[in-house]
């Protein structure tokens, strides 16, 4: 199973529909300070089931919805979808019959958020398990957010043990 595409709309500074192809090898993402690079990473973590607003650098989860600029009005809905290519199989049993798996998370201001996998409504728990089964997910060691390396360096030895628990 591969990650193949990420689509965002109304998510943080990505107010217009945006699509990022995720291809094999190394894809570089570049741009000036404050242009939205880390927001892309947060969109990926969010659709994989992130539940903490603080880890999304916000006060509450509604903060992920486009808040407006000096020229554009704020939005009330944000949506992120992640496409997984399962043609070579490898997805968790429950989903392994599909060639493609689309995970969608949508939030409305003041209403909370919901998930859909291939069009069917599911719980946050189901999405988190889907990604945990392929060693991924919002808190996976492979999602190295900005500042994470500094946090590992400054962590006390007991806090670093958490990394081992991830591997166990």
């Amino acid at each position: 199973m591969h990650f193949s595409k990420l689509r965002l709309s109304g998510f943080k500074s990505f107010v217009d529909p945006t699509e990022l192809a995720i291809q094999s090898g190394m894809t570089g993402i570049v741009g000036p300070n404050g242009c939205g690079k880390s927001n892309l990473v947060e969109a990926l973590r969010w659709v994989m089931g992130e539940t903490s607003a603080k880890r999304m650098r916000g006060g509450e989860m509604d903060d992920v919805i486009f808040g407006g600029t000096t020229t554009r009005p704020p939005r009330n809905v944000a949506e992120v979808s992640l496409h997984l290519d399962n043609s070579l199989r490898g997805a968790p049993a429950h989903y392994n019959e599909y060639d493609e798996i689309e995970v969608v998370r949508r939030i409305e201001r003041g209403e909370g958020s919901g998930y859909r996998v291939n069009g069917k409504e599911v719980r946050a728990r189901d999405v988190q398990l889907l990604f945990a089964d392929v060693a991924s997910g919002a808190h996976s060691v492979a999602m190295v957010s900005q500042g994470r390396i500094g946090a590992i360096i400054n962590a006390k030895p007991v806090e670093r043990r958490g990394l081992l628990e991830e591997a166990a």
Partner: protein
Amino acid sequence: GRERLLAAFAEVNEHFTQLFTRLFGGGRAYLTLDKGEDGDETRDPLEAGLEIMASPPGKRLQVMSLLSGGEQALTALALLFAVFLTNPAPICVLDEVDAPLDDANVDRFCTLVEEIAESAETRFLIITHHRLTMARMDRLFGVTMGERGVSQLVSVDLQRAQELRRTA
């Protein structure tokens, strides 16, 4: 519980010692489950902290906190990749992890990532401001804010990417 953690520790430690030598081009390092302040030998590994001993090429062995800023960052990267390799994920996202590294270390970091991308079939999204890292990517996406406060994703054409490779 305890058996799983000790087994994970052994596997992560094995990966870590190899990755450290590859990233530093020599030297040696290993992980220890420290016994805590009181040096209690019988301490339960589930309570212990993870300490990192490292000696960059030609230097004495010491705890990670005595290394330089860049040496600590490279050591923390070796630890993260060690945990990652015990259970490789289909995607790995690195957000400006190369910021404190000099050119020689950036080069070794990129070589390692390239090898993991090929062997583990993992797809990498790498956010960077380093020209040398940009030049090693298979493809580049730029994030811009043509309209203030609104992010747009554009694919950096090959011509531009070539230029980056040349001046890196």
